[in-house]
């Protein structure tokens, strides 16, 4: 179920009313059922994968916290995903013949996990903790790797061998990418690592942990929450406050505006420019990448706002994921404003463990490069994302070590003119990054860059399309100007005088409705 469907706008109020009407002890089960239902609307079978991640990280987290579950319980929980597939097999008539095999594989994996877990538990001490961490990370990454990267690596290996003159015909599997797998896997992994590091307590209640892993507002596209932020909120008994409704609805309205009005309309131009059939000229190439910059920003930050608003209606605060990213003055600033939950995840669980910037200059360069390559690969099984990650890694290195870019890294306030210049330069770098990100392959990326040299008039005039783009970008920038001082993209509206807010809400609502039938799926679902 997507946030911009009518189904969601029936689902959310229903859950909201039920949640606050039910006695507190029934709220968590309601959230879990609602979350699983929300996810099952895409594909009910893939709930088995969510369950697998949940079971593995719940058991490992608990064991890391020093609490031993009875082996019988470990086995029962480990067999849950296989059991779910069995239920699906019995109830769904449209399943293929391979299903019994899948059930057997899920059951086998459950038994294997049980056996390894029991073996590791017997080790004791720090060795056990490391073993449990490796078990959890290994299983989760194996699932993610199989569903997201199997064909990519096989295909890449085949190509590499081909270039070396060796013929290889590996089998490519027809694998469907489960929605949101990167998001919930990383969220779950972050929890286990935190428990291992003793920075977060283990969650003892399976229901709470399962809800944490599958919480519907943020499950499929983030923000990638931390256990220490979300689990205590799920455990606590909330008391309804009117401000939940105010803040929640405001966030949802702003999110809809960003997604439906800004992103989907910018997508009209971006889709045309990055269509292989289009003969590009420089104005179109520039228009296309600007359009995509606002499409992806509106799309993803709009999703986050709707997610935060939906959670807020249930009295739960999700972390901020975007903070005026296109006003960043350097790459480091950009990553502290763009997809904050992912960039901090990579900072805390990859960059710092690798040594961060504590070692030599070369160590820092290596750590930045590795982190950004992995962040790129996280976005998708395609070399273009790896290149995009490498590009951002190179930018971070450039700004950190190469003058005069190092001057833009200084945190102290400089002249306003210089700040704007730095922001403009960073925006240009960001645009070049989006050109990489949006290209389907290296050939298309090459064509995009080549088009920048062709300034002659093309077959299709671009001027009106530029107006179309401005028509959708300027309202967003005006909204951002209103909230800039508060430092919060959507929450900042609360501080405006009520007549201004009333007019603004009306305008946002009308703008959303005016574009309401051109809906598109959220870009980040594919990641």
């Amino acid at each position, binding site marked *: 179920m997507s946030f911009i469907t009518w*189904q969601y706008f*029936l689902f959310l109020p229903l859950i909201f009313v039920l949640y606050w009407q039910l006695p507190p002890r029934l709220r968590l089960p309601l959230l879990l059922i609602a979350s699983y239902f929300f996810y099952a609307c895409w594909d009910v079978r893939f709930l088995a994968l969510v369950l697998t991640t949940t079971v593995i990280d719940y058991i490992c987290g608990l064991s890391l916290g020093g609490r031993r579950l009875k082996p019988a319980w470990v086995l029962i929980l480990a067999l849950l995903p296989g059991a779910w597939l069995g239920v699906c097999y019995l109830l769904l008539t449209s399943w293929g013949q391979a299903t019994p095999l899948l059930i057997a594989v899920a059951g086998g994996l459950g038994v294997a996990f049980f056996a390894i877990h029991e073996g590791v538990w017997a080790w004791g001490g720090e060795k056990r903790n490391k073993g449990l961490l490796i078990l959890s990370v290994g299983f989760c990454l194996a699932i993610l790797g199989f569903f997201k990267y199997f064909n990519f690596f096989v295909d890449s290996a085949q190509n590499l061998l081909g270039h070396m003159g060796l013929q290889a015909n590996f089998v490519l599997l027809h694998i469907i990418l489960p929605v949101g797998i990167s998001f919930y896997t990383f969220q779950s992994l972050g929890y286990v690592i935190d428990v291992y590091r003793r920075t977060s307590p283990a969650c003892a209640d399976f229901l709470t942990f399962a809800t944490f892993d599958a919480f519907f507002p943020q499950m499929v596209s983030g923000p990638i929450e931390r256990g220490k932020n979300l689990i205590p909120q799920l455990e606590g008994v909330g008391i309804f406050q009117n401000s939940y409704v105010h803040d929640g609805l405001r966030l949802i309205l702003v999110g809809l505006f960003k997604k439906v009005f800004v992103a989907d309309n910018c997508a009209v131009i971006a889709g045309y420019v990055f269509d292989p059939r289009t003969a590009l000229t420089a104005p179109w190439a520039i228009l296309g990448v600007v359009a995509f910059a606002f499409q992806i920003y509106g799309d993803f930050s709009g999703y986050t706002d709707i997610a935060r608003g939906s959670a807020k209606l249930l009295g739960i605060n999700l972390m901020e994921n975007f903070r005026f990213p296109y006003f960043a003055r350097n790459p480091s600033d950009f990553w502290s404003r763009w997809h904050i939950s992912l960039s901090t995840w990579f900072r805390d669980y990859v960059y710092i463990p690798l040594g961060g910037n504590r070692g030599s200059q070369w160590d820092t360069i290596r750590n930045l490069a590795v982190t950004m390559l992995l962040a790129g690969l996280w976005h998708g099984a395609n070399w273009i994302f790896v290149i995009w990650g490498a590009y951002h890694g190179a930018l971070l290195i450039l700004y950190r070590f190469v003058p005069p870019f190092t001057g833009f890294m200084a945190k102290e306030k400089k002249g306003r003119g210089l700040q704007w210049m730095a922001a403009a330069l960073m925006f240009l770098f960001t645009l070049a990054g989006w050109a990489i990100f949006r290209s389907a392959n290296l050939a298309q990326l090459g064509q995009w860059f080549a088009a920048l040299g062709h300034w002659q008039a093309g077959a299709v005039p671009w001027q009106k399309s530029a*107006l*179309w783009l401005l028509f959708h970008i300027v309202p967003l920038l005006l909204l951002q100007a209103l909230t800039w001082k508060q430092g919060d993209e959507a929450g900042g509206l609360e501080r405006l005088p009520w007549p201004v807010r009333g*007019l603004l*809400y*009306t305008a946002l609502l009308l703008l959303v409705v005016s574009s309401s039938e051109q809906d598109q799926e959220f870009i980040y679902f594919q990641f």
Partner: protein
Amino acid sequence: MKSLIKPAFVLTVALIVLLEGGARLFFPQGVSGRFDYGYDPDAGFAENADGTVKLFRAGGRRFFPQSFSKERPPGTFRVFVIGDSIPRGPSLQASYAWLLGDELRKNWIPAEAFNLAVPGFGVRRCQIVLDRIIRYDPSLIILHVNYSNEYEDEREWRRTQEFKGWHPRHWLMKLFILRRLYEMKQEQVFWRLVPTEIRQRRAVNDADAEVAASMDAQKMREWSRQVERVTRESADLARRRHIPILLLTHCSVETNPSHGPQLNDFDMDGLGESLAGAGVYHLSMKEVFAGTPNFQSHFTDGSHMKQSGHLILAQAIFHKLQKERLLAGFTPGNLGKTAESK
């Protein structure tokens, strides 16, 4: 504790209610049938207290703005042309309806001719217009019969039904002001600012559906039978009211590499001939243009005509009216009231 309802929210709701109420109160004409996409029988017609009827763009009927008296002036030959974008023409003055009026008056016949053609209208929606204009005492109805708009008719019928239904998908759009805003954005901003090339590529689903339907032999047979049935009903409708009706069957220009440009009537001439009889006349566009040298030069594309093509057709209709003695009761005399264009 803060109150649940905040002033900003109240203001938002009040503004929407005011806009909606204002639109319904002050622009009832615009609201009526607005989202029936041509299926509302009254949309686009306004009967004024002074006895005139005004044609305007509403309810999916993009009529050229015209007006005429509700009662036909005595002794005046009144013609209404119904059809799709082809009879509509490049402009009102360049359409064969207007040019026919000129032709008649040039020959001293008091006449008024009105163009009620709307782009994309298939036989079903044309029939609804025909049913409406019968009450204005026409001397002749010209029905331009074309086979190529059945997809549009079906799609717009579906939209009408959808919007009339109570599916949650359309709840917001039940508000006139919101739906109007949505359509305004489409028509005034999207269509004007986004080049056709981009729009065509984006309209994947709709275009795909149309192409798929046009390649589906079963569907085409179904539509062909429908064109035949509805055209027959339309002819009967006029005949029952003793109003002469001229079925002008359309033809397209097809370029054949070996034989050059050819005219193709897609068997509609056969349909026209089969329906011709008492009060129902048939004119084949193919026959008209077959006798015209370099006929393809009068077309802008395979189907639509330039003004010169419309003029040829207007003259052919005039000759047909003479031949069928349909002008017999209208004595050459004073210049009749001309079609008023605003």
